[in-house]
């Protein structure tokens, strides 16, 4: 079945016919031999790189809410990287990302470069967003509403009927008038995943560091130091029910 067009000329005195097709590139079309021979060496070399082992993983690290072993691991390493990159004036600094952005669980055993590409296929970068007290409040309501997201450098407790409490890892409770820096992805900083509280911030700093590169660097360093990956649940997001 085909769609045909009659093309009426601007002079409106003659008609021609044209046709449009969006041809699907499926396996009914064979591979061009020359192109395939050009691709093969790149593909082979890429496979070698992708199969490079970065680090050993002790136990299967999985995704979930309110917190998860994989979410905690990634949020922790991103915060650590941001603390290194940002000057001391950018404090207090916490981390908030989205569990949906982590695309696969990490199985126990060797973790390859390819696995990190599967975990983080996006080209998102690390941003640091300075939030006003009102926005911090919105962030806490959001965390309560969605039931948790990967965080680091803080713990949050939600009590029914009461305001949620944000406690920094140094033990300080964030007061109503405190400004706070949050390291996150550029996708979320723009309000992705309904994180509207990141929009119109007091300040936004772009690090230019890809999240995947930060993960690759961290895993590689741990592997070279002879460490393994590990992560625990530590109650950083707690829903207290009475």
């Amino acid at each position: 079945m085909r769609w045909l067009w009659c093309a009426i000329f601007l002079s409106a005195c003659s008609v021609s016919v044209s046709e449009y097709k969006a041809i699907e590139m499926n396996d009914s079309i064979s591979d061009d031999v020359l192109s395939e021979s050009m691709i093969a060496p790149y593909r082979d070399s890429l496979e070698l790189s992708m199969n490079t082992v970065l680090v050993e993983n002790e136990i299967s690290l999985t995704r979930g809410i309110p917190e998860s072993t994989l979410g905690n691991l990634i949020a922790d390493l991103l915060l650590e990287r941001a603390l290194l990159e940002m000057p001391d004036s950018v404090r207090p600094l916490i981390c908030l990302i989205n569990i949906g952005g982590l695309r696969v669980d990490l199985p126990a055993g060797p973790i390859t470069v390819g696995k990190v590409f599967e975990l983080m296929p996006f080209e998102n970068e690390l941003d640091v967003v300075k939030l006003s007290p009102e926005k911090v409040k919105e962030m806490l309501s959001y965390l309560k509403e969605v039931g948790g997201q990967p965080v680091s450098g803080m713990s949050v407790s939600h009590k029914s009927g009461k305001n949620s409490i944000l406690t920094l890892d140094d033990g300080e409770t964030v007061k109503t008038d405190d400004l706070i820096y949050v390291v996150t992805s550029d996708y979320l900083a723009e309000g992705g995943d309904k994180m509207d509280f990141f929009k119109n911030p007091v300040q936004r700093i772009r690090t230019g560091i890809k999240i995947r590169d930060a993960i690759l660097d961290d895993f590689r360093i741990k592997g070279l130091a002879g460490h393994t990956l590990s992560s625990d649940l530590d109650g950083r997001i707690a829903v207290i029910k009475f």
Partner: protein
Amino acid sequence: MKRRNFIRQSALAGVSLATIGGLSSCRLDELGVIKLTILHTNDVHSRIDPFPITDSKYPGLGGFARRAEMVRQVRAEQENVLLFDSGDIFQGTPYFNYYGGELEFKLMSEMEYDAATYGNHDFDNGIEGLTKQLPHAKFPFINSNYELNDTPLSESTIKNKIFEKGGMRIGVFGLGIELEGLVNPKLYGNIRYTDPIAEANKQASFLKNEENCDLVICLSHLGYDYNLEKYNFDSNRICDKHVAENSQNVDIILGGHTHTFLDQPTFFTNKIGHQVMVCQVGWAGIKLGRIDLQLDRVSGFFGSAYIAPKVS
């Protein structure tokens, strides 16, 4: 008026040449018809290999080697073929992270792409990263609305290009999306974006009225239509629909950026009541767009008003 006269004269001249000498490269058949096939891609995003067979959305689809084979087949069957890409060639698979776009350009050159325009992701390794790969591209990059004077791209980018196929003249220009807010400023440096609609009219008028092109094609990375629900956060952004409706002399827009799968083109009415055909083939090289057009030399030039009866 002047334009119409020119067409009539040149059309008649073309026919008589073909009839008398049979030497014209136009290869007009007895009806005075020239056929042209335009192939196009957009947002291929470094998808060198087909999607894995396990992919939930596009299992086993796409792939450069397959596209090359299809292009080869079309070229074997058709005399007059043009092949274009509307940007975002780069970014999306480890091929780009590891080789920076080198293989994408080499394969596109082998397929004999006639031209491409820049997409926002083509700046993902900065202007330097793109410039470094350009020697691998044996086809021109056309952009008309970025001011590139203070960048290394100024010498390797052209504002428009005229292709001659079978005696007809096809004028092509290119439109890029506003990079501010979309791309890290460090990456796009001194590129300055200018109004795509004004530039479209300027280029199209030049190509059609001064260069006497029979057909004017816009390679666009502006995006299809931001007023659709999915993009309502970005509804002020200029899109192909705006360009089509506010232009004259543009016949076809080959679009990109919004990854819109248009299985059939959309037609918009332009400033002077003519129809403009807007095409886009999703992303990742899953589909190859093919337009088959016929130019009737006796009556003049490509029509831009289309009626679409369904023929089964």
